[in-house]
């Protein structure tokens, strides 16, 4: 009981029954969300799941059709101005001014935050250094790499030292190295006590960064919990066997009954523990009886999460 009350008063975001549709298409179908202060909360979902829509609603960019929400203690509808004062948003698509240099972009945001000139300059310099944007400082974004542009975008968001930050797919399109840099930046922010709502299509990313993960599918939260809780629900690593025809698949399924059949993909998925024993075992049991077209070892990803919680694959929900 005590814990429940505490969580409510400490909530950075508390949303109930958010709904949104475009025309006849229901995009959010009753979303409940509670994010504790200082937490990293990941919204995990495929294209079109409604991640951006949630971010846009909670950051006051679009109104929800139904439902209520408080953000850092302010009512989203009645106190939108106050909400804007305490949040920072880095949207899915670049919001950098392409005709201004990196430094001018930061100073522009500083002006819009009504920071005094000296503080504006100091903060801009600090962020340029922290995000290793020295080169970007004097050039317009036309010459930046994707990672640089993303970092500048985030730096602009941090000019106002927000206590709650929305990051919509902060690493999509970045190479592994830039992704690592972005993860490091996010961890540092967490260390400073900032609350973060991030969206991602990668289980690995949510797993690395988040205290809690909500899986979003077709505008509904289909699973929520800590990464550990969630991963316990996923079949986890497995060996994937692909066959040329359904007869071979049927035969293999008979030989390995603990495997999960996917008749569409002509695949058999066999749970895989650590080490090579299970693999050796599977190969031995299949033997020469069935022609295996392809064998791969699979670590859990978003698809597995979806398979586990919705019973269907996640691909192409947007279509």
């Amino acid at each position, binding site marked *: 009981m005590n814990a429940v009350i505490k969580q409510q008063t400490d909530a950075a975001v508390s949303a109930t029954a958010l709904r949104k549709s475009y025309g006849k298409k229901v995009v959010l179908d009753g979303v409940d969300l509670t994010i504790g202060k200082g937490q990293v909360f990941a919204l995990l979902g495929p294209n079109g799941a409604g991640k951006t829509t949630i971010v846009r609603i909670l*950051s*006051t*960019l679009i109104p929800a059709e139904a439902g209520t929400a408080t953000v850092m203690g302010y009512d989203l509808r009645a106190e939108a*101005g106050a909400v*804007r*004062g305490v*949040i920072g*948003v880095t*949207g899915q*698509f*670049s*919001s*950098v*001014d*392409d*005709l*201004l240099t990196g430094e*001018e972009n930061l100073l*522009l*945001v500083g*002006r*819009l*935050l*009504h920071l005094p000139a000296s503080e504006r300059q100091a903060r801009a310099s600090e962020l340029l250094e922290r995000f290793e944007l020295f080169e970007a400082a004097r050039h*317009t974004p036309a010459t930046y790499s994707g990672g640089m542009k993303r970092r500048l975008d985030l730096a*602009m968001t941090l000019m*106002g030292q927000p206590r709650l930050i929305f990051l919509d797919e902060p690493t999509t399109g970045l190479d592994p190295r830039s992704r690592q840099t972005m993860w490091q930046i996010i961890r540092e922010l967490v260390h400073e006590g900032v609350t973060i709502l991030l969206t991602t299509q990668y289980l690995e990313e949510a797993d690395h960064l988040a205290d809690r993960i909500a899986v979003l599918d077709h505008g509904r939260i289909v699973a929520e919990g800590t990464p550990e809780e969630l991963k316990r629900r996923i079949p986890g690593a497995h060996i994937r066997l692909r066959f040329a025809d359904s007869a071979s698949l049927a035969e293999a399924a008979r030989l390995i009954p603990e495997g999960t059949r996917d008749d569409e993909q002509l695949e058999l998925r066999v749970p895989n523990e650590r080490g090579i024993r299970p693999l050796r075992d599977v190969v031995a049991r299949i033997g020469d009886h069935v022609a295996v077209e392809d064998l791969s070892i699979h670590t859990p990803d978003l698809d597995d999460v979806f398979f586990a919680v919705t019973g269907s694959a996640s691909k192409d929900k947007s279509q």
Partner: protein
Amino acid sequence: MSALTFAAQDSATMLWREIKHSIRLLRLLIVSAILVPVVMLLLFDYILGGTLGHGLGDVARGAPYIDYLVPGILVMTIAGGCGPTAINVSMDITGGFVDRIRAMAVVRGALLAGHVGVSVLRMLVASAAVTAVALLLGFRPKASVGDWFAVVGIVAAFSFALAWLSAAIGLVTKSVAGANGSTLPLSFLLPFLSSTFVPADSMPVGVRWFAANQPFTPVVDSLRGLLTGAPVGSTPYLALAWCAAIALVGYLWAQAAFRRA
């Protein structure tokens, strides 16, 4: 700080941003805002001017065609600023920058105020530059100091009106290319269907009525009268009334479109 101070501060910030943009696109702007009208001036004066000037007869009151032409070119110069304004607004609205601003505690109207402010500034600078070139080419205005003030006032009012209208067009068109195309009637068609190059009286009947009664004509006629020292009567008031009406419609339309965008 009061709400008014914030509004002024945020608008000034957006103005600063737009000035930076204009400086970064200076070469492009010089070509589109100054060079194009100057080329039109040369074409109409040197190539068409002989015949057109002759055809004017009494209307020209013995002055060379360039004196008749320059006020029209000035209006074209101002109208030529519509495209860039609509494009800039459209780029902001279709890009991500406006989302960043909307999610911040920035005064709502500041972005448009900045666009319109700098748009007017660009139109005024271009008008001054084109006038200077015209003077070099033999334009000889006979305006008094008071007339000049009136000219500047009308040019400013007309710029202000068209800037708001273009901002609205930039907001309602769904793409940057669309924004540019949708200002063409303003920057191209309306000037030709007015007394910009030849008197409305000389046009075919249907067009004549439209040309005589559309807003560009009183604006051109007042500028022409003031600059050539001809009596203007109440035409400048009609021009200013049109400017006020266009500015109001443009403003309300733009504000409504910005809320919806």
